[in-house]
């Protein structure tokens, strides 16, 4: 299997404080990787390093078998940020306009958007089940619907991997369920590699096929989530007082 993202001995810190120490991580084609860890364990920082928003202070990152600084084909990598952080909900833009924005680099500077691209927008809106919302203002949708639109926005440039940063924060439980189903569909049916950061270890381990645990500046990966020694891992990363409680409802 092709390695899509490869981190070798990556270290990073803010103002001299190391938050990541010699991180090694391989993400393969078709992976559905969950990155979990307590708040402040530099999970988002790790994503930003992969996306070249931040640069590693030591170590190297390879994307699609190329050195990161040489990598140009950013359309292959989709990114869904934490909803609350990078979005002005009173922005007067329709769903169609928001999704279409990711096509701009493909269309090129100084050129208008043609019918071919408009069709593409509705194609991906259909994938996320939002095709009837094209003309609605993004600010008038619910959190769950907005997040689906942002997934559509990354899908429109046909990415091979999508990185998501705490995508379900502030979204109600029912919509979260739909959202995870959608991610599974993208991964299983469309073959898109998915990397999701979350602090919600209980939910994420049920959904993903591989888990990476972060904490104390380090990262440990587990190849299958069924055999993770949960309580051991939790004590290691979250502290002594943390134990995983699993309970099931009989409906």
């Amino acid at each position, binding site marked *: 299997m092709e390695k899509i993202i490869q981190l070798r001995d990556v270290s990073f810190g803010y103002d001299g404080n190391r938050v990541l120490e010699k991180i090694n991580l391989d993400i393969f084609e078709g992976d559905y990787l969950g990155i979990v860890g307590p708040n402040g364990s530099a999970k988002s920082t790790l994503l930003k390093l992969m996306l070249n928003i931040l640069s590693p202070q030591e170590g190297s990152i390879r994307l699609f078998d190329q050195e990161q600084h040489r990598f140009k084909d950013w359309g292959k990598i989709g990114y869904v940020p934490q909803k609350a952080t990078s979005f002005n909900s009173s922005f007067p833009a*329709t769903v169609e*306009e928001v999704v279409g924005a990711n096509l701009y680099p493909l269309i090129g500077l100084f050129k208008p958007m043609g019918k071919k691209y408009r069709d593409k927008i509705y194609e991906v809106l259909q994938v996320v089940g939002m095709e009837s919302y094209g003309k609605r203002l993004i600010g008038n949708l619910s959190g769950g619907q907005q997040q689906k639109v942002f997934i559509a926005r990354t899908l429109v440039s046909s990415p091979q991997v999508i990185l998501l940063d705490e995508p379900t924060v502030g979204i109600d439980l029912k919509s979260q369920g739909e959202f995870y189903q959608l991610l599974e569909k993208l991964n299983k049916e469309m073959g898109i590699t998915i990397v999701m950061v979350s602090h919600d270890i209980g939910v994420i381990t049920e959904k993903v096929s591989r888990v990476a645990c972060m904490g104390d500046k380090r990262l440990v990966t587990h190849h299958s989530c069924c055999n993770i020694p949960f309580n051991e891992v939790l004590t290691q990363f979250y502290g002594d007082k943390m134990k995983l409680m699993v309970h099931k409802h009989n409906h």
Partner: protein
Amino acid sequence: MLEILQYSFMQRALLAGMIIGILCPLIGIFIVLRRMSLIGDSLSHVALAGIAAGILTGIYPLGMALGASVLAALAIEKLRKTYEQYAELAIAIILSAGIGIAVVLISMARSFNVDLFGYLFGSITTVLPEDLRLIAALGLFIIGSVALLYKELFYIAFDEEAAALAGIPVQWINIFFIIVIAATITLSMRIVGVLLVSSLMVVPVATSLQIAGSFKQAMLFSLIFAELAVISGIIISFYFELASGGTIVLVSIFILIAVLLGKNIRQGIQAKKTVSENKKTASL
């Protein structure tokens, strides 16, 4: 109406006004949505310093203003990175510097107060032929280039980080855009005046945001509201001998109030309809 067009200074004022009525909201919509509304005020005060320097040294004042505000715009972009968490601080620093220099220069030469009055509050009688040439040439260039970069400016305004990740040359477009803001302010000064330039960039956009159903509509409505304000403002200021800048801005505020009232009345009617419909369904 025809009487207005007999005077060549009015023809120039109206032509310049119409170009500015497109320029200001075209740039303004991106400024407002990027939450940089005060940048207009900041750069116009630097432009005033340029005007003062121009009058003092005898060099074409609008040219000096253009140079000063472009330099200030670049400084803001640089400071915005230095104070990343306090982007508005960059705008405040340049505003202070601009007004400081302007006041010192004005106090150095006490004789040009009448001329300066026109620049401060806008004056339709003082649009010179060379001003109109500058406004037309640079104005059309800006309108053309913003139209061509429309998609990219939209994406950066909506989500700068995502735009950069998608491969849009955000840094270059930001620098280009801030220079365009500076140029727009300088060009608009003759008509609306230093103190009110920023209002013409912001108020029509604020009005259109109340009713726009998409970004395209927001753009279109703010252009319509700004043109309406500029043309009727110039005509009113001609007949009543008022300062054009103030009149134009007051007309645009009047349009804002009318739109807000209209929207409230419509919502009130709709709410009543829903209540009576609910009552009907309940009684059935």
